[in-house]
């Protein structure tokens, strides 16, 4: 199973970026191989609209089966929901800790969008 984290950094010590639409990249952790890949999301930093939708598309394209981020707007939520990808929210903590929390099942799952658009 793969799980995507929004982040500004490039390692497991990097912090979670709590912005979803405008995070520069995703770190995708693979539980089978215990390794990760980085997926660029920077084209969205400049987007005037729909950044959340495109970020959601990027997450879907990574093949991740879950997403951990800080907040999620209504459109991105709809896209991820249609793709069957659950969204977990967390504080800006190191990704390594969040992987642990995910395994322990202590992360909070988002049941509906928690911010208005423009993220």
């Amino acid at each position, binding site marked *: 199973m793969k799980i995507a984290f929004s982040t500004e950094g490039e390692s497991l010590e990097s912090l979670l970026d709590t912005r979803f639409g405008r995070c520069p990249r995703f770190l995708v952790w693979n539980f089978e191989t215990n390794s990760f890949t980085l997926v660029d999301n920077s084209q969205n930093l400049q987007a005037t609209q729909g950044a959340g*939708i495109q970020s959601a598309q990027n997450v879907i394209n990574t093949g991740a089966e879950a997403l951990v981020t800080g907040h999620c707007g209504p459109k991105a939520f709809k896209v*991820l929901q249609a793709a069957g990808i659950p969204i977990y929210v967390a504080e800006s903590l190191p990704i390594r800790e969040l992987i642990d929390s995910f395994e322990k099942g202590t992360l909070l799952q988002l049941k509906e969008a928690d911010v208005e658009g423009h993220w």
Partner: protein
Amino acid sequence: MKIAIASGKGGTGKTSLAVALLHANAERARLLDCDVEEPNCHLFLSHTVIGHKAVELLIPQVNPNLCKLCGKCVEACQFNAIAIAGNQVMIFNELCHSCGGCARICPHGAIQEFPVKIGELSQSRCKNEAELLTGTLEIGHASAPAVIKAAKKALPLQDVPFTLIDSPPGTACTFVAAVEDSDFVFLVTEATPFGLNDLKLAVEALLNMELPFAIIVNRIQSETNLITDYANQQGFPIWLQIPEDRHIAETYARGGNLLDVKPELKKVLRELLDRCQP
């Protein structure tokens, strides 16, 4: 000649001024209410509606039987309005700019475009014979600029030398759509710190668009105020200052207009249009 009446924020008396300008120039001007999210010029003008016209945009729809989920449309949409999730293409109408790109690029002919009503134009003749054209955006649609552009393109009831455009407040894309390609802009403001702040933003936007403008200060307490200080310092013209007057507010509340209280302004309001000519 197109003259936009704009304001960095709401509540500066922009609409009242637009209405008074129309009254003072009834035989030679028409008024477009382009404040499409909240058009209200019609409340201050007795008028008869002559016709309505829907403003439509073409919005794409995907036929799931033909779609192969290839993703070409997602890539093609510059407005990030499309995503593929699960086994479906999702199009977010409210982000779609009707560019037609996705339908053109789809290799399987799965995307068809359908007209969707996003607003309405209504054309009226006022009691003073002048034309009022009102653009109204349907609630829930984001394409206000499209309605504004349609209002500006509508055929006039009669040909007159001046088209006045009551523009949406603020400096966002709706403001730009309303003022762009006008020949002159009146910026209406109030002599308050908020008024000055919003005026500066509007001035900056107009300078970027290289549009000529003059400032009109509403509800002044004194001939010299923080707007005149700013304008003098920057070398921006102020063409009219309207004193604070309790009677004016009362007249508006009754659906009257500025000229009912200050008939002497008629001459000034006619000169304002003459002065816009290069």
